[in-house]
């Protein structure tokens, strides 16, 4: 079996399992797995920018959180008690302020467009994209690379988190936005604990994987890989490296924003902790564990790490040390399995493919290593001769 066939089978199997899961899960676990699938979408975003283009963003949570907030704002306004002005603003308004969304608190007019759910949903992708394009443009035009990109993105996420916490009258502050309405599209309601929200997430995940794979196996994926390998060489071949980097950074932010919206649908809240450093770094760990250069790998990594994490959080012994375990896992993966689970899968398929062929050619069943050393030996003798 070639690696290509094997990976197609792996993708199909993964999609089948994801689609079948609600049939066997209770409502609690349907909701939990839906959230893990949301995290998988985040990991895909990381894989696109880090795995394919070598841009390690430690601020992906910023875009994720923005996506979550955009939709959460719309869903806050969809609750009848929050009309015409959300409760959180009434609690924080000046005594004689006008009770209207235009001017009840400073900047509250920013909420006006979010009266429309559609605006919230579009903004959840577009706003992170625009912000990423701005940050990316400044960063990449100045030829910032490597660890500096990570530090800058991390700083932006911290700024985002602080802005939300410090602007309580506008954003709900530390408590974030809770008590949201359920998302309803065309009379169809997405129940976070039922199959509807689950399938919204699952189908989005599958669509994101397929689109990302189509894009990254095409010409642009090849160019991005080349930029990852040697940015200067790509430039001397005539590519405007910055534009490609801004593009993929932007797409990756859009994917994170989309995931953020799905998070709001499945968790029914948005808090500043979505922009916390720990979540951004966790996303990187998920992608690294699964294999950063593999979309499916990154997905599976997110699922496994979160599933194990949730088991650990139920145990009194493991719950307090889970962050430490997660940190050690990252160190281990970076040192010993740089291509993550996907890398192990690939090595396994390629090895079994090789032994199959060897087995056909030579029934005596020599080990691969013996065979290799023998081949080197023959080559050496040939060269001497």
């Amino acid at each position, binding site marked *: 079996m070639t690696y290509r066939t094997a990976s197609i089978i792996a993708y199909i199997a993964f999609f089948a399992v994801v689609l079948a899961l609600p049939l066997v899960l209770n409502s609690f676990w349907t909701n939990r797995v839906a959230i893990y699938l949301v995290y998988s979408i985040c990991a895909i975003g990381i894989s696109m920018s880090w795995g394919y283009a070598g841009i390690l963003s430690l601020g992906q949570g910023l875009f994720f959180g923005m996506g979550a907030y955009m939709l959460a704002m719309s869903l806050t306004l969809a609750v009848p008690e929050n009309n015409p002005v959300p409760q959180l603003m009434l609690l924080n308004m000046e005594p004689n302020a006008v009770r209207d969304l235009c001017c009840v608190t400073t900047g509250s007019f920013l909420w006006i467009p979010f009266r429309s759910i559609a605006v919230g949903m579009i903004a959840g992708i577009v706003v992170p994209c625009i912000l990423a394009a701005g940050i990316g443009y400044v960063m990449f035009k100045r030829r910032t690379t490597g660890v500096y990109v990570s530090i800058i993105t991390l700083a932006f996420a911290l700024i985002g988190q602080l802005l939300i916490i410090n602007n309580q009258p506008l954003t709900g502050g530390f408590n974030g936005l809770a008590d949201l309405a359920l998302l309803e599209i065309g009379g169809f309601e997405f129940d976070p604990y039922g199959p509807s929200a689950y399938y919204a997430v699952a189908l989005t995940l599958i669509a994101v994987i397929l689109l990302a794979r189509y894009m990254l196996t095409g010409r642009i994926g090849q160019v991005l890989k080349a930029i990852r390998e040697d940015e200067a060489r790509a430039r001397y*071949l*005539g590519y405007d490296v910055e534009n490609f980097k801004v593009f993929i950074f932007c797409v990756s932010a859009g994917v994170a924003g989309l995931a953020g919206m799905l998070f709001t649908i499945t968790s029914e809240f948005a808090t500043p902790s979505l922009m916390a450093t720990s979540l951004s770094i966790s996303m990187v760990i998920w992608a690294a564990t699964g294999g950063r250069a593999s979309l499916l790998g990154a997905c599976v990594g997110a699922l496994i790490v979160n599933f194990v994490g949730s088991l650990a959080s139920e145990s009194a012994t493991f719950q307090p040390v889970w962050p430490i375990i997660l940190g050690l896992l990252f160190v281990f993966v970076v040192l010993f399995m740089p291509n993550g689970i996907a890398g192990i899968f690939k090595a396994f398929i390629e090895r079994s493919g090789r032994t199959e062929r060897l087995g056909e050619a030579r029934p005596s069943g020599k080990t691969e290593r013996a065979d290799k050393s023998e081949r080197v030996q023959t080559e050496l003798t040939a060269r001497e001769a």
Partner: protein
Amino acid sequence: MNAVHRPSKAETVSAVPILRTQKLTVRFDEFPAVRDVDLSIADGELRVIIGANGAGKSTLLDLLCGKTLPSEGEIWLRDRNITGIGEAAIARSGVGRKFQTPTVFKDMTVLENLQVASNRRVRVFQNLFDRVKSGPNDKEVAVAERTGLLGSLKRKASELSHGQLQWLELAMVLSQDPKIILLDEPAAGMTAAETDKTAELLLDLAGSHTVLVIEHDMAFVRRICKTITVMHQGAVLAEGTAEEIEGNPAVIEAYLGSATLSHA
């Protein structure tokens, strides 16, 4: 093939040198690494630049391909001023650069390296919906054959020998269809057999391509080239045939006791 034989406005085109520099100067901390270099390369020429270590040869190539910005002076490619337009734009306007230590995309196959190099649609959205062929096209086969890489198309670049890496980078530069090729010591680190092959390749390129080569090895230089430019302390010291250069008193004085020429 030469510009002279092309119909219409060919005369004016051939009159302008393909590459020309005017008083090209770059200073690093007030130290002039390249000083007032006026270079003029004709269409189809194979020109070699020689000079001791630190004479400014590589820096000159860096200036020409945009890696380093000149402090003063101008670079003209045919009738276009390409000074300071950025590496990518310079590359697109027709300057191909091969570095001394081969820079290729190590984790990609030879074919993928060539595909990235020969893809002339360099904008993001031109590439977005473009698929990549799994096999080589005619152009890629031709360039791989020319550089002896036809049998290695499916191999990863990281598996190639040093000599093959040099050829791969050259093949990539050729795939760009450049107007002028800048080569920094193309035979560095090659075995005698590989050097022979490289010399043949360069002679083969001359005529159909304009090539500017930096080289240390005088024996190699004499094999491939008619006109030599000698650089010394950042400036052009002399220009002429191998015989003229070796008989030039200024060159002899500059190189007195230096291994480069006496070795030759």
